[in-house]
């Protein structure tokens, strides 16, 4: 349980951090600090169990239908990383509080930081690899937010984008790798995966899976050739760099190597891929770091180089190398975090990070200088510091295969990288703190605030005590973490400063002396070298690929998306038609099935002829808009008749009332629009569209015919049988709507409500001039609200409402229900608006339609929720019989309350639309004086 809390605690805290900073600048920092401490204290009891040799698992059902659980594990490796993430996280929280300036939004920073912290914890504590991948991707996303924190800077945005593109692409590859891994093992749980090393390594899919997993790990850990995002991510605020590039983000990749070490390592493929990538990264990173003038650039490349070292160690693949890898993870996290923080302090207090201007800072900030020098010495691998210990182990491990051909390459490369590491560390110390007085610094440097130094002090003290008394400090943690990696008994090793005059010792000596020498010939080398050594190739390649991709997508968009909606509709229809015709190609089949046909009667034939004529008339005469509108009204009424004929009385009633409202609506719209459509399509265009329409029409007709003449099976028997006993209603259509499929109906009325509100929003502030004359150019009648119509509709209103109540009440048993009753009520109200005018009617309706819609949705939803109170699923209905005097036996179902909600929404939306549409006219119709002048 506490594992789940540890992971989700930062996620929960993040929005609060963003919100709380509104109240005070430092609140968010406090909250983030408390969160880290809280998560650490939650972890503490579990950590004791892990030190006692246990692994802790926790599972929570997530999507049981898919067999997916949230599953977490805490073993030595997970514990080490969780401690690094939370511990260094806490220090970064403290440091950032002093680093960020008054203009920076503290809340946003700490919210992102907490999101990132939670994602990292999710990676290292996940038991399920798919779940691990979800957290993996969320570190990519949250690190994007962190790197681009200074959004106004171009390099922040492009650096963040590059980091996201590279690590995101790696995440995609990793997903593929994990899916293959799951296929091979038959489980996505780490416990099974780690136990199935033999099966995995001998499986034919091992190699592709390995490539994909390594792509994920290498992109995240900035291994060659994906290293170039890391220096560009230095555009982030320094606390972010200190966090992401020491203990967390980039360590996720090596974490993955360590995590899957027992399952994947021990093959030649693993050895060659991992160790070659590691070696190239180690050497090139160290070499380039030397030439960087930017303090953070130097540290960035040094980070790449150290990550290469760790990768190389895991690539070597012996248990002892893995132990050394874990040890270097710890050491690198401590000294690199403190160095980044020191670089941030220098930047903060001196105003620049350019090492050509920074000199002699010892005079100004001796205390910070001492801290930075100890940390840099640890980075160089100077004895009595932690970096020395793991580096010695590394040197010793490179000597394993020295007898093989080319075996000398590894120790030589390692020593060379050691020389560069010493040289750039020594440059960091000598160049910044000594080497003469500073040259035109923007600010006069001084010591930072007291508490800004505390995180650096803590880390530097750790470097020292680990380096001097490793057995008393780091040994238990290293042992438990290394056994977490190996999932097997640990090999023999000793953590001591002095191992005698062995080869590894001499390699260290060569590195130290050689490094100092290289630095002192630095200016000589520098003169030889023209460009300040990036590998332009990779970054340029990235940009080329990116630009090509942009061009490609732009091309595709331009190809598919034209500016003309008219043409796009055409493309859509053509495509649909092609798909339809494509379905016919292949096996020949009979269009006509063997189902018996219904006889044709005269009335039906007549109605059909009227519908066809009216529809064709609408299309042919569409340029005369009013005529077309009348024609389409005929079609709508005809459709209602078809519904009535084919045993669908509910549909007929609905269609009839909808038809009325639709025609009124279109008439209203036509009042504002031009009365005629100009004939602007050329003849061939019309012919083309006609052919297309003919094709679509024939297709639909043939399809309908083919379906109608074939027998079919339906699931309707269930509804027909259950309607009365289960839903308490005889009208099966209504029972389906409000009971069996009530959830769908709830969705549908929500859509309707949204459409209504959308229309209301669109009409906000819209004013249109109505036409002054009808389509025959006659004036409108001056009598806007004829008395006869007014009196009649007023008389009709109570009757119409009565009918609607009747229709509503009987809806459960006979044709009717909320939809139809709602439409009838709406029609009755709209009649009032038409007859009496909007202002008059609105003044007499005591509530507005938005409230009505809201009430309807609320009633419908709470009817559903009410069944929860009785421990039934959402929208379970109940019913009982009631005897009304005069009316007789009568069923009262809870679904009726739901239907009431439907009713209210339908009334509300319909009236809202019509009334607001009526309100948009300026004053065309009422300005009789103006029109008198026209006359």
């Amino acid at each position, binding site marked *: 349980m506490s594992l789940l809390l540890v992971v989700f605690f930062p996620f929960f805290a993040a929005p609060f951090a963003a919100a709380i900073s509104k109240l005070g600048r430092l609140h968010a920092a406090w909250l983030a600090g408390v969160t880290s401490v809280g998560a650490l204290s939650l972890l503490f009891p579990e950590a004791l169990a892990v030190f006692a040799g246990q692994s802790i698992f926790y599972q929570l059902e997530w999507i049981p239908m898919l067999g997916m659980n949230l599953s977490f594990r805490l073993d030595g490796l997970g514990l080490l990383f969780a401690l690094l993430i939370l511990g260094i996280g806490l220090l970064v929280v403290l440091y950032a509080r002093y680093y960020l300036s008054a203009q920076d939004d503290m809340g946003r920073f700490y919210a992102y930081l907490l999101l990132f912290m939670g994602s990292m914890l999710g990676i290292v504590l996940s038991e399920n690899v798919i779940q691990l991948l979800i957290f993996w991707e969320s570190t990519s996303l949250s690190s994007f937010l962190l790197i681009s924190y200074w959004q106004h800077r171009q390099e922040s945005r492009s650096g963040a984008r590059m980091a996201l593109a590279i690590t995101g692409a790696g995440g995609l590859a990793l997903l593929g790798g994990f899916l293959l891994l799951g296929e091979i093992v038959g489980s996505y749980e780490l416990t099974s995966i780690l136990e199935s090393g033999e099966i995995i390594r001998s499986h034919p899919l091992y190699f592709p899976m390995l490539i994909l997993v390594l792509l994920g790990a290498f992109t995240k850990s900035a291994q060659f050739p994906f290293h170039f995002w890391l220096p560009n991510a230095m555009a982030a605020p320094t606390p972010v760099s200190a966090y992401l590039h020491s203990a967390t983000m980039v360590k996720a990749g090596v974490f993955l190597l360590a995590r899957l070490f027992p399952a994947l390592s021990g093959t030649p493929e693993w050895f060659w891929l991992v160790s070659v990538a590691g070696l190239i990264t180690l050497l090139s990173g160290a070499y380039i770091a030397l030439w960087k003038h930017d303090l953070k650039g130097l540290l960035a490349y040094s980070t790449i180089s150290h990550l290469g070292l760790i990768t190389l160690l895991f690539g070597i693949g012996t248990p002892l190398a893995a132990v050394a890898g874990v040890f270097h993870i710890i050491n690198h996290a401590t000294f690199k975090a403190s160095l980044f923080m020191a670089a941030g302090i220098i930047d903060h207090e001196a105003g620049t990070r350019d090492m050509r201007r920074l000199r002699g800072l010892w005079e100004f900030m001796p205390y910070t200088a001492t801290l930075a020098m100890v940390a840099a010495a640890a980075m160089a691998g100077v004895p009595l510091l932690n970096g020395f210990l793991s580096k010695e182990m590394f040197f010793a491990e490179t000597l394993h295969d020295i007898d093989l051909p080319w075996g000398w390459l590894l120790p030589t490369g390692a020593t060379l990288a050691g020389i560069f590491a010493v040289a750039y560390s020594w440059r960091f110390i000598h160049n910044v703190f000594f080497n003469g007085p500073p040259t035109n610094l923007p600010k006069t440097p001084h010591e930072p605030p007291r508490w800004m130094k505390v995180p650096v002090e803590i880390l530097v003290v750790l470097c020292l005590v680990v380096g001097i008394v490793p057995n008393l400090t780091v040994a238990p943690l290293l042992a438990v973490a290394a056994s977490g990696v190996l999932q097997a008994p640990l090999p023999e090793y000793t953590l001591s400063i002095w191992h005698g005059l062995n080869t590894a010792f001499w390699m260290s000596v060569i590195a130290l002396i050689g490094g100092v020498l290289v630095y002192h010939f630095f200016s000589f080398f520098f003169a030889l070298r023209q460009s300040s050594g990036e590998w332009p190739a990779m970054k340029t390649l990235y940009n080329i690929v990116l630009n090509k991709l942009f061009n490609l997508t732009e091309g595709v968009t331009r190809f598919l998306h034209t500016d003309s909606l*008219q043409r796009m509709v055409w493309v859509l229809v053509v495509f649909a038609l092609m798909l339809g015709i494509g379905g016919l190609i292949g096996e020949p089949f009979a269009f006509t099935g063997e189902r018996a046909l*219904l006889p044709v009667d005269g009335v039906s034939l007549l109605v059909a002829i009227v519908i066809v004529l009216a529809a064709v008339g609408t299309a042919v005469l569409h340029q005369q808009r009013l005529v077309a509108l009348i024609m389409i009204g005929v079609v709508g009424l005809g*459709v209602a008749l078809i519904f009535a004929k*084919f045993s669908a009385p509910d*549909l007929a009633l609905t269609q009839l009332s*909808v038809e009325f409202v639709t025609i009124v609506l279109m008439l209203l719209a036509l009042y504002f629009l031009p009365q005629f459509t100009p004939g602007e399509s050329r003849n061939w265009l019309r012919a083309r569209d006609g052919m297309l329409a003919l094709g679509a029409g024939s297709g639909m007709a043939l399809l309908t015919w083919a379906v*109608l003449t074939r027998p079919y099976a339906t699931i309707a028997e269930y509804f027909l049988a259950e309607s009365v006993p289960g839903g308490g209603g005889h009208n099966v259509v209504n029972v389906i709507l409000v009971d069996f499929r009530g959830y769908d109906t709830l969705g549908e009325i929500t859509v309707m409500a949204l459409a209504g509100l959308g229309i209301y929003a669109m009409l906000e502030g819209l004013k249109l001039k109505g036409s002054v004359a009808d389509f025959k150019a006659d004036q409108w009648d001056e009598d806007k609200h004829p008395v006869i119509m007014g009196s009649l509709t007023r008389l009709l209103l109570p009757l119409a409402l009565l009918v609607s109540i009747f229709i509503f009440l009987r809806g459960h048993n006979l*044709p009717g229900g909320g*939809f139809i009753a709602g439409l009838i009520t709406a029609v009755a109200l709209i009649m009032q608006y038409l007859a009496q005018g909007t202002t008059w009617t609105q003044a007499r309706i005591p509530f507005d339609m938005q409230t009505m819609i809201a009430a309807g949705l609320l009633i419908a939803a709470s009817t559903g929720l009410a069944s929860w109170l009785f421990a039934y699923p959402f929208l379970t209905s109940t019913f009982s019989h009631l005897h009304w005097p005069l009316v007789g036996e009568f069923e009262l179902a809870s679904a009726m309350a739901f239907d009431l909600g439907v009713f209210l929404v339908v009334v509300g939306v319909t009236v809202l639309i019509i009334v607001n549409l009526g309100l948009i006219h300026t004053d065309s119709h009422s300005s009789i004086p103006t029109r008198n002048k026209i006359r």
Partner: protein
Amino acid sequence: MEAIISLIIGVLTACGVYLSLRGRTFPVVLGLTLLSYAANLFLLAMGRLTIGAPPIITETADGYADPIPQALVLTAIVISFAMTAFVIVLALKTFKEMGNDHVDGIHKP
């Protein structure tokens, strides 16, 4: 009877498609309305045609029409009304913003 219904659905679709391809908003709205009639009829037809057997449970009835397509169509009618209204208002808004009622917001020569 099946042939008549197929024909009606075909004609409604054809007229609907033709009108939807026009350049002005009002015919397009008419076209969409015709298409929604066609779609509703088509949905109903998927339950096959039955005469005189509404799906209302009585003791004397010896068969019922399929209620499922009917339930589908009933909501479809109401929703398509809401959508037609939305499109109409969109057309009015475009007319106001663009000064003409072409679907692409431009006058073609």
